[in-house]
């Protein structure tokens, strides 16, 4: 556990979309890759189908992710990728969290 220290928490500066840890995890999963399929994403974040649909829809409404549907080996596959807006919002959120913790060099978009 990191050392607890005093900080000024301003909720207005935190993106409400990421208040759900599942939405945060979905977005984080899409940051380092071009795109991910629904089932892969679901297993990665450990969610149920119903939970995933709800949170993915919320992220789509916010304009943070986009959906792509296509057929692979005659089976329908739904993939998601992060938009520029989503990438910016995620980076801002991570920066804000890092600032709270008085850290620097937290995860970014590039590997």
């Amino acid at each position: 556990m990191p050392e607890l220290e005093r900080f000024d928490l301003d909720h207005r500066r935190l993106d409400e979309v990421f208040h759900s840890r599942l939405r945060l995890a979905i977005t984080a999963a899409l940051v380092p890759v071009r795109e991910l399929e629904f089932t892969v994403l679901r297993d990665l974040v450990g969610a149920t189908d119903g939970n995933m649909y709800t949170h993915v829809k919320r992220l789509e409404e916010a304009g943070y992710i986009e959906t792509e549907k296509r057929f692979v080996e005659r089976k329908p596959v739904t993939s998601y990728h992060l938009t520029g807006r989503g990438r910016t919002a995620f980076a801002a959120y991570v920066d804000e969290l890092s600032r709270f913790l008085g850290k620097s060099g937290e995860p970014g978009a590039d590997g």
Partner: protein
Amino acid sequence: MSHEKREERERVEHNIRAAEDLAVIRRIMESSRELVENDGKWFVLWGGACAAGTGISYLLIALSLVEFIPVLWSVVTVAVIVSGIAGDRRRKTGRPRSIAGSILGAAWAAVIALGAAVSAGAALAGVLDLSFAMGIVSACVAAGYIVTAWAVRSRMIGVLSVLWWAGGVLLPAMPGYGAPAVLGLMTFFLEFVPGLVMLRTARRIRSLNGNTGTQNGNAGA
């Protein structure tokens, strides 16, 4: 409870929440990246083996044991493929594979097959000039790096791909045994060393996640 105590408790809770969020982000990002690309192990394996193979090849040339060079490279190729596949199977048992990851795997298999065919063909048949063959190998590796950079959105790998392309242009212009030597150095500095960096980063993130106790596979809602 006094106002100050409540405020202090809220601060602590928010701080814990922020730390947990960052731990979740780190773990998920690393896992996601590994679904598409390995954690640098293949780069270390291929880069290290090819650089060492080049050094040993020069030693064999110096000792007038040139006939052992094809045997050496056959052993290196088989050893790297077998150890890599065995390691991947142990680590990824039961894990999903993304389409991008499958494309990347196929692209690298094609790169290795083409590079091995061209360099082995050039060495054995003498159809191609050795320097020209090294240039083709470098260009093949550059293609693999470009696909990797596209799949994992990595600027570092994108920059490395440009350097490999430069090798594809410059190596054919090198006389004698200069081109294989430069290719050996390139595999060390542009593949082995970046692979070590990627491995170190992946291990650091895994250990950080271990310390914060958030590697149970569920992000929570």
